[in-house]
């Protein structure tokens, strides 16, 4: 045989999972939520979703062309960002705001930091917070033809009590994607079944948030109050689709639980004690900033490597110093 074979370092086989497969699964998991948003808020919502996705994908494409980089829109990560951002907009938002948000998410939060895998903050949430700060009135205008009342959380804050069934199905005011608990949980089940996410982050997030509510909510253990907080805002969408964003959550298993707990507490603080009704997006982007720190202190102990004895020694030294 004269022909030479391929050689490479081991292993010589690869699993079927690819980045674009994973991103595509996230897109599919978001479809029930998007679909319900469109059903609930009408063509306004559909147009906003299309405009946002188009702007994120185009921004990535144009940026990469200008910078003479390989074009990576085929990995669907820009689609996920666009979809998530759109689901975080009220259906009344003007189209130019969606475009601006999309450009900000991809250009400023993602590409300028090095593209996929390098951004330290969730692009969709970064853009949402940018829009909320820049255009507070437009971003909280939830008055549509269908719903004229306050969002469940705003109602809760002013002392009212939203109807639970409405929140589960999604017949309330809010951003396009946050209203229907049912659609979000359906999407989350898809992600969990296909192994894209696990319950470490969302589980610890939701549990710690509930504990925080019981302790500091002023209602004690009041199921109506707790369920309204869980189902009435962006918490579920945030916990299952944005806090679980691979790039901006810790990679260490222990760190993911610490991160979830941090998000739960921060969301609780923002919702209960701040002037606004919502706090999920701020909690998550704050959590994003803590990721390197959390990772540093939650590195798993390698197999068979004994616990470092340093701690004991330093404690002993402290003891000596005290005595």
């Amino acid at each position, binding site marked *: *045989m004269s022909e*030479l*074979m*391929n*050689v*490479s*370092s*081991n*292993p*010589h*086989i*690869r*699993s079927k*999972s*690819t*980045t674009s*497969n*994973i991103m595509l699964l996230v897109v599919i998991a978001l479809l029930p939520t998007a679909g319900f948003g469109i059903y609930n808020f009408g063509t306004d919502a559909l147009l906003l979703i299309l405009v946002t996705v188009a702007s994120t994908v185009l921004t990535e494409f144009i940026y990469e062309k200008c910078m003479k980089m390989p074009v*990576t829109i085929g*990995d669907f*990560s820009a689609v996920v960002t666009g979809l998530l951002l759109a689901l975080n907009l009220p259906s009344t938002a003007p189209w130019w705001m969606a475009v601006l948000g999309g450009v900000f998410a991809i250009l400023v939060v993602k590409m300028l930091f090095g*593209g*996929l*895998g*390098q951004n330290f903050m969730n692009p969709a949430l970064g853009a949402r917070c940018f829009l909320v700060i820049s255009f507070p009135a437009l971003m909280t205008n939830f008055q549509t033809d269908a719903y004229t009342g306050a969002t469940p959380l705003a109602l809760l804050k002013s002392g009212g009590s939203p109807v639970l069934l409405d929140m589960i199905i999604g017949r309330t005011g809010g951003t396009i994607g946050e209203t229907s608990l049912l659609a979000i949980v359906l999407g989350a089940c898809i992600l969990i079944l296909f192994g894209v996410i696990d319950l470490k982050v969302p589980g610890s997030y939701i549990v710690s948030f509930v504990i925080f509510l019981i302790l500091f909510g002023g209602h004690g253990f009041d199921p109506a109050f707790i369920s309204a907080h869980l189902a009435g805002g962006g918490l579920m969408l945030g916990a299952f689709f944005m806090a679980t964003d*691979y*790039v*901006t*959550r810790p*990679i*260490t*298993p222990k760190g*993911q639980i610490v991160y979830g707990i941090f998000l739960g507490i921060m969301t609780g603080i923002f919702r209960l004690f701040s002037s606004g009704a919502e706090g999920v997006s701020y909690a998550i982007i704050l959590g994003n900033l803590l990721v390197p720190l959390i990772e540093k202190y939650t*590195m*798993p*102990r*390698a*197999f*068979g*490597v*004994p616990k470092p004895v340093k701690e004991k020694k330093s404690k002993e030294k402290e003891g000596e110093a005290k005595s």
Partner: protein
Amino acid sequence: MASSTFLGGVHPYDGKDLSKDKPIKDVLPKGDLVYPLSQHIGAPAKPVVQKGDHVLTGQLIAEAGGFVSAPIYASVSGTVKAIEPRRIVTGDSVNSIIIENDGLYEEVEYPQRKPVEEMTKEEIIESVRTAGVVGMGGAGFPTAVKLSPKEPDKIDYIIANCAECEPYLTSDYRRMMENPELLIDGLKVMLQLFDHAQGILAVEENKPDAIKLLKEKTKDEPRIEVRPLKTKYPQGAERMIIYACTGRKINSKMLPADAGCIVDNVDTIVAINDAVRNGRPLMYRIVTVTGDAIKDPRNFRVRIGTNYHELIEEAGGFIKDPEKIISGGPMMGFGIFDTNVPTTKTASALLCLSRDDVSRMAPSACINCGQCVEACPEQLVPSHLATYSEHYNEEAFLKNNGLECVECGCCSFVCPAKRPLTQYIKSMRKIQLGKKKK
């Protein structure tokens, strides 16, 4: 008993059906035989023959070059044609003895042996040493050294590694099915060395017939137990199999003996048996020739030194154009660019694939998904270690236990971004281990 396992690991397509029902067939070499002087860990062997010498099957041709080393024996009769560097599976050129096969297979006469039961421990270890037995699972560590730990009384378990967790490999399975008594006898020889030890035959659950057969054969052996293990790669890695069988953990700075264990692979134990009971040196090994490019995947009993090219011909040649040929399994084997290399003591399979996954998948950016962390049996963070290696950040690499990596390949296998994580880590480990030696 509940099946034991470890944390992490992966489940690749196992491909064992291709060759698992094919009985072991003897292969007679046609061309020259090549014996690399370094087929084991430790000092290379020193040749004791010269060009032009006539040798017989089973004759010593190179003696051990030190304490951690192993002698090499001719596996055919013929004439020493040359002693020169030849390429081996890793791609390195290694000084080798080349023997022209005279096709007569005249064998030396082995001296009469006394029964094992009457032999002292030293005599047993000495026969393993002179027979040139090395760990045939892949590492090639001289077995006699392994059998002489500092504190023999502290050995509690002798684990026969029958996991065969590498996809496609069926050589150990065939051995267990066809010669279970050789394996059990070999384990008994090893148990004779360690008075307090219990023998464990650790088999993955995907070989239920082997488990059944071994259980039946060992039902009257109080010191031997068959332990089914969960089917998962790398169940057969030394540290993982010790943990699965005993719950004890060792790290890169420890030997299995530090956890009271001695682990040897199926073929090694059979070789120990042959060396001690019959005084036969290590001359054969079982090799699985398989893969979708091979016409008739088979298991062969091969004389060490036989050219790989002959094995492929023996298996009916190719039915598809092979894109990649691997010596060993797909997870830890070596890709070879040319089949003109000899079978060594540590060869276990020749895998010919018509499709090379690796060359078709371009690595992209890490998305921090954490699948490598979940898969790593050593509980490392491969994606970080790979980045440290890329940036040559020695400090961070060592601090995060990069040296604990066993190079099993799980991280590269699962990576959705198709990053060659194992390769990065492996290169850095090589550099760091080299520095340590100096």
